[in-house]
């Protein structure tokens, strides 16, 4: 609790934290074998922050992302998301939290190929129980915001990779969530599209969105205002200024 209060104090004068992880541990066990993926992670992210979480594969970065995204539950510790303790919620309650509080952007885009752009964007609104005309209006609005106002009726196969990822960003935005969680959003994109999507995230950040970006690419992480590095299930560095981030990025580049 003390750690959390200190963190809260530290960021309290800026804005209340959207994410407050406190001594979070996650242990996977299969049979007699148990692997500790997270070994006490404490992390606080305030409203409006743009944070990159970096780490090599096997570092626990995906597990951390799953915990933050309420896709998985933690074994020990506490997780407060937008003022609500989500550490030990039921599956149904977690589904609702994911629906209302979090917008996901995945590496694989994860658009449904049978639905056109706006029908893909409206999906989270369907599960929020919003009426169809409202859903359509809001979906098209979100698509216009990511610059795809003229592609609302296109199917994913008729869009380029960058455009597909922008549809995914629109889908993440449409519920107006407290947090946008992007898991390697540029991992499947060429450099032009990567710049497109990162510019879009910059814009959203400038508009006051809280963004958590998971990546292993240093130049992607360099866009974020703050870089948290994770290794062996523990946070090893957390640089919250741009210079620090650059330094972190350099370190990452030079790391063997």
């Amino acid at each position, binding site marked *: 609790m003390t750690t959390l209060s200190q963190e809260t104090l530290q960021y309290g004068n800026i804005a209340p934290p959207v994410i407050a992880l406190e001594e979070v541990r996650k242990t996977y066990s299969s049979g007699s074998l148990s692997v500790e993926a997270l070994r006490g992670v404490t992390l606080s992210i305030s409203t409006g922050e743009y944070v990159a979480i970096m780490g090599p594969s096997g570092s626990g970065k995906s597990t951390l992302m*799953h915990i933050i*995204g309420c*896709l*998985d539950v933690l074994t020990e510790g506490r997780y407060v998301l937008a003022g609500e303790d989500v550490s030990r919620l039921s*599956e*149904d309650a977690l*589904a*609702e939290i*994911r*629906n*209302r509080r979090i917008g*996901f952007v*995945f590496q*694989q885009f*994860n658009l*449904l190929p*049978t639905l056109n752009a706006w029908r893909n964007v409206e*999906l*989270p609104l*369907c*599960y*929020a*129980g919003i009426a*169809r005309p409202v859903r359509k209006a809001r979906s098209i609005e979100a698509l216009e915001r990511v610059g795809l106002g003229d592609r609302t009726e296109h199917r994913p196969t008729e869009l380029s990779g960058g455009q597909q990822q922008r549809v995914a960003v629109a*889908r993440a935005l449409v519920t107006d969530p407290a947090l946008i969680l992007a898991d390697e959003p540029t991992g499947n994109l060429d450099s032009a599209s990567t710049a497109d999507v990162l510019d879009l995230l910059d814009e959203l950040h400038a508009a006051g969105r809280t963004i958590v970006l998971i990546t292993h690419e240093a130049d992607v992480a360099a866009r974020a205002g703050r870089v948290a590095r994770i290794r062996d299930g523990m946070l090893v560095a957390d640089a919250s200024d741009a210079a620090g981030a650059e330094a972190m990025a350099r370190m990452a580049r030079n790391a063997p």
Partner: protein
Amino acid sequence: MSWWETLRTGLEAVRTHRLRSCLTMLGILIGIAAVILTVGLGEGAQAKVSGQINALGSNLLIVSPGSSTSSSGVRGGFGSASTLTVRDAAALSNKTVAPDIKAVAPTVSTSESLTAGSTNWTTSVVGSQPDWLPVRARTLAAGRFITAADVSSRAAVVVLGTTTAQELFGGASAVGQSVTINSIPFQVIGELTPIGSSSTENQDDTAIVPITTAQTRLIGGSSRSSVSTIYLEAGSSKMLSAAYQEANNELLATHGITLATAADFSIATQQSILSTATSVDKTLTILLAGIAAISLLVGGIGVMNIMLVSVTERIKEIGLRKALGAPPRVIRRQFLVESSVLGFAGGILGVGLGIVGAVLLPKVISQPIAISGLAAAGAIAVAVAIGVVFGVYPASRAARLAPIDALRGD
């Protein structure tokens, strides 16, 4: 997510995997069509048989003579003895003894050759009384029927069935013509309205003469007063069992028999004939419907199989939907709706195929197929139930998937 939304999503999924959905539905479709057709075939056959038996007359009781035992001890079957006589028939006509019996028609029958000019035709010649016509629920197409005067005067008059008249006189009118039976010239006084053939006999191929004429001039011999069958008509369907009792008691009394089990006659009702005749059909229908139901079960297993494949194939979609906030129950509902849509569509198409079969098949197999609305509605309900029942397991498997495992699947 509302049920309506879920239904829309389910329909979309079915439409997206068009070929697979069609093949899955085919299993249900064939099963439902088979059930509908076999049940319809059974019902059609039963309706046909009961139609034939009802055509014998309404509220009919049929009294047959009992068995005979020859001097050597060989027992014949029921009807082999000539224990019934005209006196029995007269006794049953007594309104004080049998108030519930409306009409009595004793008959004798013999097979004779009828000759008209150069044409001859062998048919069953039935001797009876004026009441034969209402008791057997027959009507005349032309001429008149036998009267009481004909009976008492042993008149040489005959009423012909349509087939018989056709065979003897071609298209010409038979009434007024002369027919020779057993070297005796008979005058044709009437022609019966055709009613079609029953399974055992052509009821339009017959010749009716006064019972006295048949007994004395056609059959002759020692058993002049015996009759082969007495047809009784009860006043109404409610009086049928009372009429049965009265006939039974009166015949036991006139025959001097005290023990009912020793009766030398038997009385059958239309109902008892009907149930005997349809019992075989019923057994066959149940057997066939059972086989059809098994094919329906196989169709259901097909639905389950396809739904399981569908869950595995759409594991990423399920993961994404869960990540976007779909709770397990909504995922379960989505897959249940999908499988019941398959069941419902299969059911509707199956009933459609069944109806087409019911129209086309009778032309090939000359058996009527009766499809009732109730059977069709029931079949569709069963098809939906199959979709739901066989969808439960795949749907709950989808609902149980952890979102991260589902998203990882690549």
